[in-house]
Structures are given as C-alpha cells and as structure tokens.
C-alpha cells in the first residue's frame, strides 16, 4: 500500500515536471522543470531502495542540467525574450512515436521479468553494484569512458579557434 502510494505521488511529480518541460514557453522555466523531473527520478530510486543510484543521479544530473542552462543562456541571445513556439503540426506523429517507445519499454519489462527483477535487487546493494561495474563489466565501462573522451576531444576541437597561420 505504502509502496503504491509513494510510487503514485512521485510519478505524478515526474509526469507533471516532464509535461511542463515540453509545455513551458520560457527557456529557463523549462530547465527548472527538467531539474524537478530528474530529482523526481532520484526520489523513485530512493523509493526502490537504490539510494546509491539516487545520490549519483542528483550529483551528476544536477551538474549536467546546470551546464545545459549555462550554455543555453550563453549561446542564446536575449533568452528572456525568446518564446518557444510549440508546433501542432506534428502532434499525431509525436503521439504515435511516444506510444511506440512506451510500448517497447513495457514489452521489454514484461517479457523479461526475470532480468528486470535480478537487476533491481543487485542495484540496491552498493557493493554489488561496484563489483558489477568494476569487475564483471569493466571492459564495457572503460569503452564507455572512451566514448566520453572522444566526445570531449570533439567538443574542444570544435570550440577551439583555428590558428590562421
């Protein structure tokens, strides 16, 4: 009962936040709604006893969102006057693709009950998580960091002023 109640409340917050990310016509408001949505996700992790994931979610995603915000304000001129226009032409296609993604996720979870369950119990334990990431899956983990490194090098290469000589 408590589990259901908590889940429903947190879901309401997340859904409301996510909806407002799309609906709000002020760029900075959008960012704050996004932050609320991500915090809600962290709350969901806490609710499922995955406290480590929740803390990491807050630490990493808040940093990410703040960076996003800084870039948004620095790169966009006169942000306060920019009103985001929400197109209506793509409504049908948007709903269709959203439903398709939702369906795929539901299908994956329902079909693969066992894996979903196993992963969930493993994630609750910080030690198990550490062993999984840094021993059992250390190669994919390192490959992932290589991907991030490539992205960073690319960003620096793009941002650097080209020397005329």
């Amino acid at each position, binding site marked *: 009962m408590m589990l259901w109640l908590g889940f429903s409340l947190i879901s309401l917050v997340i859904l409301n936040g996510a909806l407002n990310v799309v609906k709000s016509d002020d760029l900075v408001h959008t960012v*704050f709604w996004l932050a609320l949505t991500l915090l809600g996700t962290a709350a969901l992790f806490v609710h499922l006893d995955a406290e*480590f994931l929740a*803390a990491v979610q807050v630490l990493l995603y808040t940093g990410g969102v703040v960076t996003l915000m800084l870039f948004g304000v620095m790169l966009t001129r006169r942000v306060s006057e920019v009103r985001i226009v929400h197109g209506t032409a793509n409504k049908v296609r948007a709903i269709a693709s959203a439903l398709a993604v939702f369906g795929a996720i539901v299908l994956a979870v329902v079909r693969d009950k066992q894996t979903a369950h196993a992963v969930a119990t493993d994630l609750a334990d*910080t030690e198990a998580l550490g062993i999984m990431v840094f021993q059992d899956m250390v190669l994919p983990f390192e490959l992932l960091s290589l991907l991030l490194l490539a992205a960073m090098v690319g960003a620096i290469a793009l941002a650097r002023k080209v020397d005329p000589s």
Partner: protein
Amino acid sequence: MSFDNPWIHGLVMGLILANVALVITGYSIWFERKFAGRMQNRPGPSVVGPWGLLQPLADALKLLQKEDIVPRSADRALFNLAPPLTVFCALSALAVVPVGPGVIVADLHIGILFALAMGSLTVFPVWMAGWASNTKYALLGAMRSAAQSISYEIPLLLSATVPIILADSFRITDIVNAQLGGKWFALWPPGPGIAAFALFFLCSLAEANRIPFDIPEAESELVSGVSTEYTGMKWGLFQLAEYLHTFIISLVATTLFLGGWDGPGDNDGIIWMAIKSLTLFAGIFWIRWSFMRYRADQLMAICWKFFLPLGLVLVMLTALWVHLI
C-alpha cells in the same frame, strides 16, 4: 510508537539538530563580527546587550520589519521560491551528519554522497534567484556561482573519496568509527590524509562561495551578486543559508578527517565534535578576514590545473596505501 521508529526518531532529531544549528549559525554572525573587530583593533558589536550578545536577535527583528520589495520586471514565482530553497538545500545536508555516537537524523548508508549531493543542489536556488531578479549583477553572480560550483564539485568529490576508501564505507558513522582511538584520517596516511583534508576544506569553501572564493558576490564588482535585488528577510535567508552551509561544511570535514567525536584517550563524546567543528568554523572566519578574493579566471585555473590533478593523485595514493597495508 517508540523512539526507535525511524519516522519519530527522524522528526525529533531533525527538529532538535536543525534548531541547534540555526542558533549556532545566528550567533556565528555575532562571533564573526566580534572576531573581525578584534582583528582590526576595534570592539565589534557592543551596544545591544552585554558584549553585544543580543545583536543577532536585533538584526533578525530589523530584517523582519523591512519592506519586502519585488522588482517589477522580476519573475515573481521564482524570485520568491529561491530564498527558502537555498536554506532547504543547506539544511538538508545536516540530516546525514552524525554529531555524536547515535546522534543523527538519518544514518543513510550513502550518507556522504547525500551530503555532497545536497551541497551541489544549492546551485539551483542561487541560479533561480539570479535569473528571476532580471538584473545584470544578479545574473552575472549566478553564472559565476554555477560555473564555480560545478567545477569545484569534482575535486571535492575526489577528496571525499579518500576517507571513503580508508573506511571502506559511504556511511559517515562508519567513517568516524574507523577513526576512533586517534587514527584520524587527516593524520594517519601521513601526507595524503592532510592534503585531502586541505583539499576538501578549500573546495567546500568554494562551493559555499566563501572568501577567498567569493567572486559570485564580489561586492567591489557585482554589488552583492545574487542577493542584490532582495530585501528584508528574503535577503536574510540567503545570508542564513551561506552561514549554515559553512557550519555544515565544518561538521562534515570534522567527521571525515578529524575523527568526529573521538577525544583523547577514552573520552569520546559530542563535546569533542563541538570543539573541533567550531574551531574549523572559526578558522573559516579567520581566513575570510585575512585573505583577498581571487579573480574569476584565477579561480578556475586553480581548480582545473591544481586541485583536480591533486585530487586524482590523492585518490590513487590512498588506494595504493590501503592495498599495501
């Protein structure tokens, strides 16, 4: 319903600790003004009450009576939401800090991560206030603050990793217990310990926007940064949050590196925690009245070119130490 119930325990403990922290924070402002006064060869507050002891109360009353002004072009909702949110973020980190054996609101097994996450969340209300004020000084202050926070967060996390590795736990109670009997992490791995402590302390100061890292509110350049447009108690809440944040930093640094409530011999107890953390707290004031602030670019250079590599080296040295011993 007994005290063992986590809800009751958390509520009662939370109320007590939050109020104690708020009173200490209020009086720390009196202490700072006295301290700064003595350093500059003047008496400091001395008119209201004996030794000026009633000054914080008088200040609070004055702030409550002031007119509440919201600029016409401000984003009203965000402008009003920001001040209480800063206090919320600063205060919630207190929940996972053990003040004495068993004196803790919630003994989370990821305690230290929670405290750091809450500290990093402070950047949101600061940015919110800077943006909602809709003036250049507030916005510049907020941008500086955001850039500073997300940069210093990385060496801060790295330096906090050192006691985590040494104690083999994220739970702050476990970290303190591992140091009982004088094996303080600031002293024990000789070298890396004290360096990690210094790094943690300095990066925390930067996160709390304290001098010498207070460029987000540099008075000589930005009027008063994020809180420029705020009046009365809303401005007071920003000040409160800053001092509260500083106090909680002293508490966390004491538990991570100075053995928490560990005293000489078998004399462990809250009193030692109080002595150590309040000494650190006073040290922060000492730094504030002794040093100038850095320039914005110097601040970033120190973080990325010195603190970050130092943090990485310290983590590796500590891991090596634990592996070999």
